[in-house]
């Protein structure tokens, strides 16, 4: 047990935790936009998975990190647009469409992966320039802080900027005011001249982009490969973290880090070889998320029109 309290253990744990939090953080930040505009985007998982798959394929064939990133983002956006079309334009129920689309994406990506790469014992790797972590000279040498904060992927810094910008946009700009208004009371927003359809589509596009980026992080930055269902329900955890984070990007950052670190911890506890079935360890981050949510979730904080369809001439 004493290993747990050594500095090396702590530093690698935190560094890994931050890394594992990234895909969830990106997706959850996107979901904040969607849910603030009233879209209950259960399809988050599917958008991540689509991003992970498409970016891997593009990266594998073009060997270009930039193209792979762009493709991953675009794939997320397109998946989100499918959901938007069904839910906003055709007024379908958010949860039903979201779940169905998730299953579609899972089948779609697994199928085309086999078509493209066949079934192999050693899955192909993308190995793009810029994957993995990059140590920043000097800063990464700071004890404790250095390895945790300055030996990460470039996307880590991008994600921090995205969180800050998201907070600013949602809470300090007129555009953010419109997003929140549509999510609270679409009819009121419309009477004030807000095009609620446009706002919801834009919010969903932002969400799809960030979820796609989160998936991209998984496939081409952290693992270098794609496997079936690579996202493994991280999209759903991100949904929970949005609630935990009270639809606020900064709190979502805290929630994601919490989950990431617990996830990293359970991996290490498995490795230590405690006399406990490893399934229990696997459960740990999920169980803790539930426990934390039970104790922190407030009732009235969610956007009032979350998951609700709006039609102008229906009273």
């Amino acid at each position, binding site marked *: 047990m004493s290993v747990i309290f050594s500095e090396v253990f702590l530093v690698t744990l935190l560094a890994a935790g931050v890394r594992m939090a990234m895909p969830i953080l990106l997706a959850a930040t996107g979901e904040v936009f969607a849910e603030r505009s009233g879209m209950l985007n259960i399809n988050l998982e599917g958008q991540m998975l689509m991003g992970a798959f498409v970016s891997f394929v593009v990266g594998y064939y073009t060997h270009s990190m930039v193209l792979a990133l762009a493709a991953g983002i675009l794939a997320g956006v397109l998946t989100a647009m499918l959901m938007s079309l069904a839910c906003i334009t055709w007024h379908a129920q958010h949860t039903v469409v979201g779940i169905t689309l998730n299953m579609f994406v899972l089948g779609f990506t697994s199928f085309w992966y086999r078509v493209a790469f066949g079934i192999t014992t050693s899955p192909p790797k993308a190995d793009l320039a810029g994957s993995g972590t990059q140590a920043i000279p000097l800063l990464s040498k700071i004890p404790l802080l250095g390895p945790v904060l300055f030996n990460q992927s470039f996307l880590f810094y991008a994600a921090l900027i995205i969180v800050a910008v998201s907070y*600013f946009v949602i809470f*300090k*700009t*007129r555009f953010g*005011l*419109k997003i*929140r*208004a549509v999510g*609270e*009371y679409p*009819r*009121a*927003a*419309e*009477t*004030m*001249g*807000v*095009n609620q359809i446009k706002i919801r589509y834009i919010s969903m596009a932002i969400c799809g982009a960030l979820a796609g980026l989160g998936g991209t992080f998984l496939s081409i930055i952290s693992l270098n490969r794609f496997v079936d269902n690579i996202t493994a329900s991280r999209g759903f955890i991100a949904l929970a973290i949005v609630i935990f984070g009270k639809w606020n990007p900064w709190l979502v950052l805290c929630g994601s880090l919490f989950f990431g670190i617990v996830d990293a911890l359970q991996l290490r506890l498995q490795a230590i070889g405690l006399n406990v079935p490893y399934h229990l360890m696997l459960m740990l981050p999920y169980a803790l998320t539930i426990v934390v949510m039970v104790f922190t979730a407030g009732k009235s904080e969610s956007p*009032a029109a979350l998951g609700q369809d709006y039609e*102008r*001439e229906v*009273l």
Partner: protein
Amino acid sequence: MIRNITKQFGDSKANDNVHLTVRSGEVHALLGENGAGKSTLMNILYGLYKPTGGQIVYRGEEVVIDSPMKALSLGIGMVHQHFMLIPAFKTWENIILGTEGDGKLKVDVRIVRERILTIARQYSLQIDPDARISTLSVGLQQQVEIAKALYRGAELLILDEPTGVLTPPEKAKLFETLRSYANSGHSVIFISHKLDEVMEISDRVTVLRGGKNVATENTADMDKQKLARLMVGRNVDFGVQKDSFAGETSQVLSVHNLVVPGNRLVSSLKGVSFTIRAGEIVGIAGVDGNGQAELAEALTGLRHVEQGEVLLGGQNIKNISPRRVIDTGVALIPEDRKSVGTVKNYTIDQNIILRREKAPSASRHGMLAYKRITRRTDEMIKEYDIRYTGRYLPVSALSGGNLQKVILAREISANCRLLIAMHPTRGLDVGAIEFVHAKLLQAREKGTALLLISSELEEILALADRVFVMCDGRFAGELTQRNITMENIGMLMGGETLAAQKEGEADA
């Protein structure tokens, strides 16, 4: 100006070739019963509904208003009957929502606040830009609604039934604001079904009935009687005829020392006792939120009673399930007809059989008997004169008056022993109020005991045989036939107990 506007919902016309001309600098009242098409017409003018036919001419030019955005850009603002405010937002956020900024990315709250306060001063509105909407009273929320339109520079302000939720002083203040707004050359369309208000505030009045124009007149040439005739299409009886109560009948409800925890301390019942006899209407007057809702809920099994006794015909109904309360013969006309009184996505038929779905008129062997239900509903629709746009549309498509008739049809026809009516005519127009009152009196004739909870003093005065005035969860006093007057009730509402009552008796 609006020309030949027609709006069709399904196969019914909500507006049929309606004309309306509004001049600058005037307050123009749009008068009509519920369901006459007033709100529909205004939603068309505000771009929320697409007209099926007709034109809108604004400042001499024909315009197409296909969205609220367009209406706002033309200078048309609207204060909706159900406020279009976001409760979780602050006042200033609600006001600037949808406006374009000065090109800066970040909202400059200081400038916004300044502008809001300037407008507030100009039209003597009471606005705190940083107050969250959910913390404001309804009256203050309405002022925010008006400020929203004025912030956009509205030159034509539409107000849809703005006074229904206001106290008398708030109403006076609103009228003052509207006057000063109209005097500065702007126009106001004031939608109402209340005759007094129309007489008081408007310069001209257009009356709609059944979706059609009836008349446009100068208000000065009209009086209440004439307007009522135009609006309803027949003479309206403002008084209520009823025989005095003999008081010899058997006791139906007996409540003794009722203690019930309330939503707030002031609305907790702190020992309330009264009785109602068969064929008697007992009125509960008082400012809302002094325990009236808790009383109704406690009597119908919806709220737990801490102490005391509730007997219906000698049978205990304290803290038994609502189902059993209903079976014992208690019917309730709830305060909120939309979310408590009816299931809004159900049809008239389905709403009418609620609570009595087991009765032979609705089901056999556990299966719904649709033929019988339809037949019975048809009878009800006839008896209660329920006017609908579609027989099998959800009741959310009904106007408030007709919705209340559905509830009355269900509750009164249940042959109940005790009928509790909470604010039975709130928000209804003259015709519907007259109808509801007649039905309540009919139930009284049949020997039902009635508990009438209302904040409308006229209603209490017209209907009740005995009146209790509620204040702070207690009865501030009881008034019996001879001394039920507006003055006495008013005094008791203010909390002046014994002295006021003695005075009242001396007067009588």
